C-alpha cells in the first residue's frame, strides 16, 4: 500500500517534469527557426538633409597609382566637425562602390573626426578599413593621402592630422604606411602633387 502523501508528491513531480519537457521542446523549436533575413552590419548612411555643397574629393586610382581631384555635391551640416565627417564619409562611400577605382574593404567607415584647435584633426577609422586594407606601400599611401588631402582641402585650418584605428594608435595601416606619427598637411600636399603625376 503506497502512502497517500508519497503518491501526491510523485504526481506533482511527474507533472512538473512533463511541464518542463513541453516548455523545453517549445523553446528548442523557436531557437531552431532561422532568422527571416540576414542582418547587415554595414553602417547606415546618414539621412540626407539640408542644403548640398560642392566639395573636392581626392580620389585614388589604383590602376595607374594616382590621386585625382574630383568635385562632388553632398549635403553638408553647419557644424565643422560634422562637415569633416561627412566629406570623408562621401569619399569612403565612393571607395565602397562596386566600380571603385581604389576598393576599400566592405564595412569601411569613418568613426569620427575630432578637430582639436589649433589646427589638429584626428581621423578615427574603423577596424574594418584597416584590417582588410590591401597591403603595399603605394596602396596604403594612396589611402592616407586621399583622406588627409580631402579633409584639409574642405575643412580650412587643418594643419596636422593623426589617424587612429578604432580610437587607438596603430603602427601601420596594413604593414607599410606609418600611422604612428602626425602628418603635416603641407607635406601631404607635396605628396599629393607627386601622386597626381604618373612619372
Amino acid at each position: 500500500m503506497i502512502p497517500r502523501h508519497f503518491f501526491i508528491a510523485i504526481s506533482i513531480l511527474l507533472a512538473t517534469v512533463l511541464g518542463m519537457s513541453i516548455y523545453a521542446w517549445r523553446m528548442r523549436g523557436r531557437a531552431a527557426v532561422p532568422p527571416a533575413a540576414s542582418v547587415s552590419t554595414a553602417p547606415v548612411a546618414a539621412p540626407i538633409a539640408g542644403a548640398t555643397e560642392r566639395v573636392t574629393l581626392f580620389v585614388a586610382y589604383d590602376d595607374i597609382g594616382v590621386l585625382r581631384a574630383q568635385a562632388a555635391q553632398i549635403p553638408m551640416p553647419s557644424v565643422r566637425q560634422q562637415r569633416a565627417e561627412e566629406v570623408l564619409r562621401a569619399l569612403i562611400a565612393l571607395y565602397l562602390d562596386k566600380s571603385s577605382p581604389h576598393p576599400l574593404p566592405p564595412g569601411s567607415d569613418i568613426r569620427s573626426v575630432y578637430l582639436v584647435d589649433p589646427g589638429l584633426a584626428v581621423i578615427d577609422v574603423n577596424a574594418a578599413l584597416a584590417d582588410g586594407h590591401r597591403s603595399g606601400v603605394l596602396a596604403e599611401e594612396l589611402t592616407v593621402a586621399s583622406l588627409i588631402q580631402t579633409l584639409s582641402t574642405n575643412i580650412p585650418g587643418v594643419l596636422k592630422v593623426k589617424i587612429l584605428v578604432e580610437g587607438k594608435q596603430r603602427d601601420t595601416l596594413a604593414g607599410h604606411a606609418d600611422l604612428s606619427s602626425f602628418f603635416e598637411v603641407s607635406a601631404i600636399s607635396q605628396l599629393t602633387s607627386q601622386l597626381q603625376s604618373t612619372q
Partner: protein
Amino acid sequence: MPSTSGAFTGGDKGCRRTGGVAFGFAILLLFSLSLSAAPEKHLSIYSTVASYSLPIVQRQGRDYIGLLELLEPLGTVSAKSDGSHWRLRYNNVLGEFTVGKTRARVQGRDADISAKFLMENGRGLVPLASLNSLLPRFLGGPANLHEESARLFIGNVATHFTASVASDDPSRLVFQFTAPVNPSVATEPGRLHLTFSHEPVTAPASSTLTFASKVIPAAAYSESNGAAEITVTTNVPLMAGFSNDGRTITLAPAKSQSAATVAQRLAPPAPQGVQGAQSPPNQSSNPRRYFAIVDAGHGGADRGEALSPTLAEKDVTLAFARRLRQELESRGITTLVLRDSDANLSLDDRAFFANTTHAAIYIALHAASSGHGVRVYTALLPYADATADDRGPFRSWPTAQAASIPLSQAAAASVAEALKKSEITIRTLSAPLRPLNNIVTAAIAVEVAPPASDVSVLAAPDYQQLIAGAVANGIGAIRAQLGAAP
C-alpha cells in the same frame, strides 16, 4: 651418474652463463656501434669575437642548446637557478626563464621562446629555434640562425662570395670571398667539393650557379650540419689554387695549372679580367665595414603582402635582397643584407642596426602586387621643422633622416635613371614608410611590382636580376656623392 649428471648440468649452466655474457656484450657492442654511427648534431657559431661549435641536444622531439655555453665565449656570463627559475646575466642584460614555460623575460620584456624551457643539472636549455628572437635581446645586435643547417651568425660576420669564369680562359673558375677562407677540398668523378667548416660563408643570390664554360658548367651551394659546401660540376679533373691571402680560389683543369699554384697556398696577383669580382678591402683583423645596407622587408611572422596564395612578400624581398647584394658586391660595393634569413626584425631594430653600421646608404626592399614596374621612395618626414627636436649631436628619432633627405633624393633619382635605362616603368615618390625616417644616412625604399598583371613574375630570377642589376648600377653611379667607401 649423479656426479656425471651434476657435472653435465653444471656445464650447461656455465654454457648458458657464458652465452648470456656474450649476448650482453653483443648488445653493448651493437649499442655502441649505433651510437658511433649516428652523427652528433652541432651548432656552428660565427661571431667577430670567436667562432666555435656546441652540441645540440634532442629533447621532446626538438633541438635544444645550452644558452650559457652559447653566450660564454661572447662576454661575461653568470647563471643562477632557484627551483624552477633560472636567471642568466650576460654583461648587463638579465634573462629570466622558468622550467616548462614558453615565455621568458629579458631586461623586463617578454620574449617568446617557441617551446618549453628546460633545465638539466642547473644547465638552462632553450629551443634552437628561439635563438633568432632571443639573442638580439641579449647581444643588442643582429643574430641570424640558419636552423636547418645549424649555423648561427652573430653580427656582421658573413663571408660572401662571387663566382665567375675568367674572361680570358673559360676553363678557369674564380671564387672571390670577402674574407680569407680555408676550405677542405675533396674530389670525386665529375665533382669537386669545397667544404667550409669554420668560415661563415653564406649563400649567393641563387644556390645554383651556371657558367658559360664547357669545362665547368655549374656549381651549387648547400649547407648542412654546421658547414657550408660548394659543389662544382666539371667534366675534367680540377685543381684548386689559393691566392689573395686566402680570399681567392681558382679552379682550373689539372694540366693547365702551373706547379706553383696547384693545391698550394700562394699569393699571386688576382686573376685579370675576372667578371663580377673585385678584391674586398683589407680586413684581416677589423670587422668588415659596409657601404650599403640592404634590408629585406618583413620576415618571420610578418609575411607582408600575400602577393598570391603561395607567394609572400617577405620571401620575394629576401631573394631580391640576396640578388642585389651580389650585384652590388660585383661592382665593388661592400654590402650587408640586414635580414638574411626568415627572421622577424622590428622597424626600430632595423634602423638601429643600419645606423650603427655607419653605411653610406640604406636600401629597404618591398614587393607589391598592385601597379607595374618599380617605385623608389624617400622618407616623408612627420614634421615640417624636422630638426627642431635635435639636441646637439643627437638626432630626433622620428626625423633622423632630415639632414640626409637631399642625398637620399639624389640616390633615388640615380636609381630611377638606371631603371629607366633598363626600360623598367619607374616612379619616385616620398612615403610615410618606416624606418626610412629613422635612418641618419641616405635611405631609399624600392618597391617592386610585376611588369604586367602576372604577379608570379616577382619571384622570377630573370626579373629580379634585371631590377637588381639596374638598382646596383644606380647606386654605383652615385657612389662618389654618397661618400667615401669604407
